């Protein structure tokens, strides 16, 4: 209903944004491609709350009693597991989709905060390696820039099978973002669209994956932890198979996870939310008696220390942030609102990362725009943000009486909606009812 004219009733089936998309499609003949992650309203960690300590539990003193946040990742088979000060890590994002300055900022920020950052499609840049104390090297289907020297230079290897924004989909870096340097790293001509494959070129299925992991370990002297990253769909089976194939760490990325460029229909309609994905992954690990032996990293829509705490309470060992990290660097900043408006968007709404004309200078290869991001300042902002997430996480963990954030557990939470109770496997607030459990 319009506030100006109460007799005008907007259709629930055809609201204005749906009408606009039909009109756009009819005009252009092409589907909508964009970046960012799912924008639709889905059950999230906001639908859970913690049960702070009271008579039956006692809390820890804020700022005084220790609540440890250190995390060790990859100690199943690797000689050199990853040690981090905080369970908040930086997700894989490519040089190509991001500017060199943005990648350097992520490395600087992660290092300041005592955590890891991750490469992306297109390979490892010297700036990124140089400014990242702990760098995870993504091993992707396209193998753009894939170099065994970089594998050996990395601190861990993440085999990417999919991502939450587009499980089952590849990617496309459009020609306008293919600078000479990006083209050279990817062995392709300048200015052409670069298709990133949706599946690995030299193996199919979990039995092959096991041999691929063996090869990667042989090439890196069994030193580097091997992560396997999946987009959240059939999480229970995918995690089970990744563990069976020999992963040290499994990364599960929910449908809110971001991307540099994919069809809107893919982002909004493929994959499941992060909330049920965590529970399903933990159930798979527990059934194999591998919980806490193979570590679980969860990503997709992590924004606050509350999100981190809830993911950990459901059984994750760590989380990854991508979109939130870019916002911390300066993405969506009101400072650039006029420029966002000039390209048909606004601060807080910008999602056309694929266009390469990012006013904040982050998702671009335009040297003039990229100069707008100072990597030292960007790194500082990111470190500040990660530190805030970690402090918030500790605050909630202490309130539940936990001296290590990994001591948080599902029993510390209840759900505010039936959907969240069913997805997370915790009781609806005020009841002992978990929909779907015990035949109820």
């Amino acid at each position, binding site marked *: 209903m319009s506030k100006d004219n109460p007799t005008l009733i907007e259709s629930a089936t055809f609201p204005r944004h749906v009408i606009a998309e039909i009109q756009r499609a009819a005009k252009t*003949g092409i589907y909508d491609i964009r970046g960012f992650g799912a924008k639709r309203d889905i059950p999230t960690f906001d639908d859970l709350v913690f049960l702070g300590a009271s008579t039956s539990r006692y809390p820890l003193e804020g700022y005084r009693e220790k609540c440890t946040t250190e995390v060790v990742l990859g100690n199943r088979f690797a000689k050199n597991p990853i040690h981090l000060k905080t369970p908040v890590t930086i997700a894989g994002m490519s040089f190509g989709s991001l500017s060199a300055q943005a990648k350097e900022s992520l490395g600087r920020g992660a290092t300041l905060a005592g955590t890891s950052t991750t490469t992306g499609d297109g390979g490892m840049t010297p700036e990124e390696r140089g400014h990242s104390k702990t760098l995870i090297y993504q091993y992707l289907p396209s193998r753009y820039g894939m170099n*065994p020297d970089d594998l050996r230079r990395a601190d861990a290897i993440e085999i990417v099978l999919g991502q939450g924004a587009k499980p089952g989909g590849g990617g496309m870096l459009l020609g306008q973002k293919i600078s000479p340097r990006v083209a050279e790293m990817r*062995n392709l001509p300048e*200015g*052409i669209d670069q*298709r990133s494959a949706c599946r690995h*070129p*030299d193996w199919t299925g979990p039995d092959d994956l096991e*041999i691929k992991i*063996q090869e990667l370990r042989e090439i890196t002297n069994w030193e580097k932890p091997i992560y396997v990253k999946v987009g959240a769909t059939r999480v229970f089976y995918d995690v089970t198979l990744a563990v069976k194939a020999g992963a040290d760490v499994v990364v599960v990325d929910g449908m809110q996870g971001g991307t540099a460029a994919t069809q809107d229909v893919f982002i909004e309609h493929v994959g499941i939310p992060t909330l049920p994905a965590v529970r399903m992954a933990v159930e798979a690990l527990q059934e194999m008696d591998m919980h806490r032996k193979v570590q679980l990293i969860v990503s997709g829509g992590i924004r606050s220390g509350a999100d981190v705490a809830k993911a950990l309470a459901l059984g994750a060992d760590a989380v990854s942030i991508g979109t939130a990290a870019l916002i911390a660097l300066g993405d969506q900043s009101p400072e650039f609102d006029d420029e966002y408006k000039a390209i048909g968007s606004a601060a807080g709404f910008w999602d056309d990362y694929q266009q390469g004309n990012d006013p904040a200078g982050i998702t671009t290869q335009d040297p003039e725009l990229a100069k707008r991001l100072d990597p030292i300042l960007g790194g500082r902002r990111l470190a500040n943000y990660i530190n805030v997430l970690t402090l918030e996480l500790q605050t909630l963990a202490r309130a539940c009486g936990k001296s290590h954030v990994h001591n948080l557990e599902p029993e510390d939470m209840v759900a505010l909606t039936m959907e969240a109770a069913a997805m997370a496997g915790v009781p609806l607030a005020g009841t002992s009812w978990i929909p779907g459990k015990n035949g109820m």
Partner: protein
Amino acid sequence: MATIDLNKSTIRELNEKLQGGSSGDKFIVNNTVGKHALSVGLTEEVDVEINGHVGYYCAGMNQEASIKINGNAGPGLAENMMSGEVRVTGNASQYAAATAHGGLLVIEGDASSRCGISMKGVNIVVGGNIGHMSAFMAQSGSLVVCGDAGDALGDSIYETKIYVRGKVKSLGTDCVEKDMKKEHKEELAKLLDKAQMNYAVDEFKRYGSARKLYNFDIDQVDEY
């Protein structure tokens, strides 16, 4: 000359020894019985002769080394090779030289499907036939086929050059026959010589990208 018997040594011990070799060192590997990930991640100019069939990913990510397999090779032979030379006297299974950036792979027998998939600079010479979807999304380097090629050769190809002596069952999307110019004949002659394949360059046809799919165009959607 060091000999490693895989009845007595583990794969880890084998690779550790080969990876620790110095330029000019020679190794012989026996009793492979189809084991996986043999002779992977080498970085020096060593010579490795493998007697027997090998499993997945033999010579994976090779740099500088010369590796000869007297037998057949499983999937992913010389995947992501960067440099050096790998030769197999028998046949090779799927995805040979997948995503390889450099060096030379010689397959004296036949290669299965997806040979040279996403190749990024490697040169491949196949003495026999190759299977379907070979050189899919191939980016650069050259693929020489002395026999016949299967279906959908060079589908979605970028800048790789394909030379085929025999018949091509079908070409993939955006792959077309191209002129054999002087520079192509010279390149082909050199590759045949290095691979020790005794064929006349005039017997080959060249295939490559029509470059119609290089930038997304809605009018090309029927191609898929």
